[in-house]
């Protein structure tokens, strides 16, 4: 009993220590966004003056940095991308985990290999393919590109499907269910955790990508997502005086995603505990 208490105490201590390390840089970002003095580089953590000026700057509708517009753009793109990518990733993972057909192994190997070429080298080709159908500088193009590649990220989801016992499928098949029914009525309800995980990852990508989106959007500031928008603040002329606004923007990105994480965590754990059939 006593041994348990000590180890419990130590574990909590260790966790708090680690969490502090992990959170520390983020706290610095938050503090920087309220910092009233200095520029990009300061050798200390705690600001000397606090201000809300940088947040105000973002919301004041500066025509070159239409932050609210960027936020909306990103939100639209990420919601649609999230839905499409999740469907694609989960379908692909399910097929490769559960269904038997001739091309299964080759498709799996090819998909594994396809992700290995540095993607940015193909950006220019993707750009011209989009241009050929007149889709550059549109949010739709971004959605298309983000979702199209999603299927290749099926490995984690496939690993999850592999852990769901096959006996479930077999008994359903004996009851006369079609494969589509097995997928939608049996496997999917058991897969909440992985669906949540996949959806979350897909939802986050548009908030983080600052290279590919820039290639597609070019100079159309109105169509920027928040990541390229913020990154475009960091030019030589602007970097120093907009640095705090830049971190403020970053805090504003992190807030919805964090809330989503906290909110989904409930489902996540719930899904795992209620859904899995333990041996």
């Amino acid at each position, binding site marked *: 009993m006593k041994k348990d208490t000590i180890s*419990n105490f130590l*574990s909590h201590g260790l*966790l708090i220590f680690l*969490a502090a*390390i*992990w*959170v520390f*840089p*983020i706290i*610095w*970002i938050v503090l920087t966004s309220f910092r009233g003095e200095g520029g990009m580089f300061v050798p*200390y953590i705690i600001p000397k003056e606090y201000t809300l000026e940088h947040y105000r700057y973002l919301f004041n509708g500066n025509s070159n940095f239409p932050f609210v517009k960027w936020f909306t753009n990103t939100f639209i793109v990420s919601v649609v991308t999230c839905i499409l990518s999740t469907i*694609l990733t989960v*379908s*692909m993972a399910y*097929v490769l985990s559960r*269904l038997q057909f001739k091309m299964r192994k080759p498709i799996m*190997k090819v998909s*594994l*290999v*396809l992700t*290995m*070429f*540095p*993607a*940015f*080298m*193909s*950006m220019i*080709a993707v750009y011209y*393919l989009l241009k050929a159908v007149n889709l550059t500088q549109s949010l739709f193009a971004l959605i*298309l*590109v983000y*979702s*199209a*590649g999603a*299927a290749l990220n099926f*490995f*984690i989801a496939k*690993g*999850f499907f*592999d*852990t769901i016992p*096959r006996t479930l499928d077999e008994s359903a098949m004996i009851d006369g269910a079609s*494969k*589509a029914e097995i997928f939608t009525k049996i496997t999917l309800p058991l897969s909440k955790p*992985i669906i949540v*995980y996949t959806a979350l990852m897909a939802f*986050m990508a548009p908030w*983080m990508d*600052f290279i590919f989106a820039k290639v597609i959007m070019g100079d159309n500031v109105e169509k920027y997502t928040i*990541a390229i928008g*913020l990154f475009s603040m960091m030019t030589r002329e602007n970097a120093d005086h907009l640095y705090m606004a*830049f971190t403020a923007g970053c805090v504003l990105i*992190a807030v919805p995603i964090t809330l989503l*994480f*906290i909110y989904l965590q*409930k489902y*996540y754990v719930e899904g795992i505990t209620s859904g899995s059939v333990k*041996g």
Partner: protein
Amino acid sequence: MSQIGSTISSSLKQYSAFFKEGSGVRNLSFIIMGASHLSKGQLIKGSLFLSAEIGFILFMILQGFSAIGGLLTLGTAQQGWVMDEELGIEVLAKGDNSMLMLIYGIVAITLCILFICVYHAHFKSMQYISDLEKKGLAIPSFKDDVKSLLDDKFHITLLAIPVIGVLVFTVIPLIYMISIAFTSFDHNHLPPKNLFDWVGFANFSNILTGRMAGTFFPLLGWTLTWAFMATATSFIFGVLLALLINKKGIKGKAVFRTLFVLTMAVPQFVSLLIMRNLLHASGPVNVFLEDIGLISAPIPFLTDGLIAKLSVITINMWIGIPVTMLVATGILMNLPSDQIEAAKIDGANGFQILKSITFPQILFVMTPSLIQQFVGNINNFNVIYLLTEGGPVNSNYYSAGETDLLVTWLYKLTIETADYNIASVIGIITFVLSAVFSLFVYTRSNSFKKEDGLG
């Protein structure tokens, strides 16, 4: 290669046998696709085949042949300036754009290959119908076909859209990229003004033997070391963290998970820039350490070759551990507990259970994602580029620094020096190496083998 050849020759034999056997409308279908289906009342299917053929022929006449021709020459007319008397200045006379010709040529070839597949599917479909007829069975209606897509052919339904997406946005660009390696597309041949041309394997020999080799091999070594270290550290510590958080008796599991996962909510281009300032020679970390008297001179976290390498691996743990923690948590909760119970009854201690039961089980489920992470780390552009931009520089390398991965080097070669062909060659070599490696590991991994048994 020979396998493909024999497949083709056997298909051709089937074609001729089928042709000899049949007559009339059915053989007309070899030229006019769908004719046979239409004649047998499969109207929707027949017209789909027919429209595919008409569409393809139209495309080839209007664009396809010239696009394929362009792919062969990569352009002949060079851009120039012509005097426009009316305007009083020279105006641009557009020439061929080699890069666009390459891309559209590849699209055209892809379409041709797809058409051959359609044609073959059409043939198979005819064969299937004639088999049914011979056996005196009913020809399936369009509704039956759709139904089978939800059952026997369910994999086709699920795969259709992902495959199209990957084909258009990954495979075609990939072929384009690979093709560049065989051209003279470098800073001296920039379109649209200049044309570039096919040069065969010249770029490959330049890299493997020339000055580039002195940069390529050290960078390859570091890239592999980095990828291994980054993946391994994130995995091991991520799993340990997950175990710690999920330990019985830990309060506030959700809070801790959220705290760690926060790092995933902050875009890397911000958090890494912050890290960079944090670790700067006169940044807060060094100032703090100096103030408390631990060090007398700043630690060159990101500016000394070896220390920078250690730093990027460590900082990557900050990013990687929460990811693994999250996945491992999911797996841990799904793991069957009977084995652990049994081991406990047998008197195994916590470490033994961890080593012999929990870890292998997690590893089994995570092998594919580990391979993906490994490859992701080989191509981990963000961490390196945002933290060190490849630096500190090394004058023994060509356009590269100590912490440059092959992928950041490629980026420099394309964006900064515009040597696309060289970059592409390096890309291909990296690609082949990592593909061979991961296929090797993957096909030997437990999850793949075990699955075979089930298959």
